[in-house]
């Protein structure tokens, strides 16, 4: 009984791995899918998501790769249909300038404010003259 079970168990997994395609291709599919956003569950990549659409899009990536398409061509295919939003790394364009450089802009503003405040801070008190020193000493003695 146990043996039959073990046999079936192994058979099941061998069938599973038989059905699996070329592991190198699969790796390439997943690498590209992890660069693309699943539009249904927007904070997941196509590689992580189990949504139906993510599955379909992974299949589409696989088919295109089997046909010899480059990663760039496939990304082009996806953005033509779903827009730049599908890219986890948005392209550098006029409309995304603020997205890319906004944080640096804020940093520069912060630095400028800091420099100005430091410059404006009054320096060390001026040295006292002889007469003032004598007057201070007198006042202290009293």
């Amino acid at each position, binding site marked *: 009984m146990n043996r039959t079970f073990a046999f079936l168990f192994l058979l099941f997994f061998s069938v599973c791995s038989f059905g699996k395609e070329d592991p190198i291709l699969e790796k390439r599919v997943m690498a590209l899918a992890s660069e693309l956003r699943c*539009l249904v569950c*927007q904070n997941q990549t196509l590689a992580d998501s189990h949504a139906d659409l993510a599955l379909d899009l992974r299949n589409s990536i696989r088919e295109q790769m089997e046909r010899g398409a480059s990663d760039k061509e496939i990304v082009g295919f996806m*953005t*033509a*249909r*779903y*827009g730049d*939003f599908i890219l986890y790394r948005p392209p550098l364009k006029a409309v995304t300038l603020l997205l890319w450089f906004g944080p640096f802009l804020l940093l520069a503003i912060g630095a400028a404010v800091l420099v100005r405040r430091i410059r404006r801070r009054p320096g060390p008190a001026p040295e006292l003259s002889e007469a003032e020193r004598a007057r201070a000493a007198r006042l202290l003695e009293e």
Partner: protein
Amino acid sequence: MNSRVLVVVGVFALLVGILAAGLRLNPREVPSPLIGKPAPPFELPLLKQEGKTFAAQQMLGRVWLLNVWASWCEPCLQEHPVITTLAKSLPAPVIGLNYKDARENALPWLARHGDPFMLSVFDSSGRIGIEYGVYGVPETYVIDKRGVIRYKRIGPVTPEIAAQKIAPLVSELSRE
């Protein structure tokens, strides 16, 4: 001192304004790159007659709507009365793209809720859906006489959108 308080309050108000605007944006409304582009061609079997096909090119010269729907999609049911009204009142036919559905579910759905479509094509694999950048059913496209996509709605069409966006656009495009 007073001016410093003003600056702090001003910056804070600006921040609140930006965040409030951000909260009001709907992250599901992704601008479609397909607006202004030719509608992707397709030839698909009819939902009601398996043996017959329909091609998007047959609609050239007419303004038409493509409505992506499925029997498993709750919001499709919600927008169904709006689509039905649109189909009756617009000079443009509405074609259904039955998306990743099964005939045994889709046909009873139409029988139960009414069929506003001139016809529905059957995209069981969702392949044509990908061509149209579909990711949140229902989706609705307005396509002009030259076969160019002029408007896309992701999610259910509301009576407001139907009256304020789709109807005026269709009558404008019909005059072109």
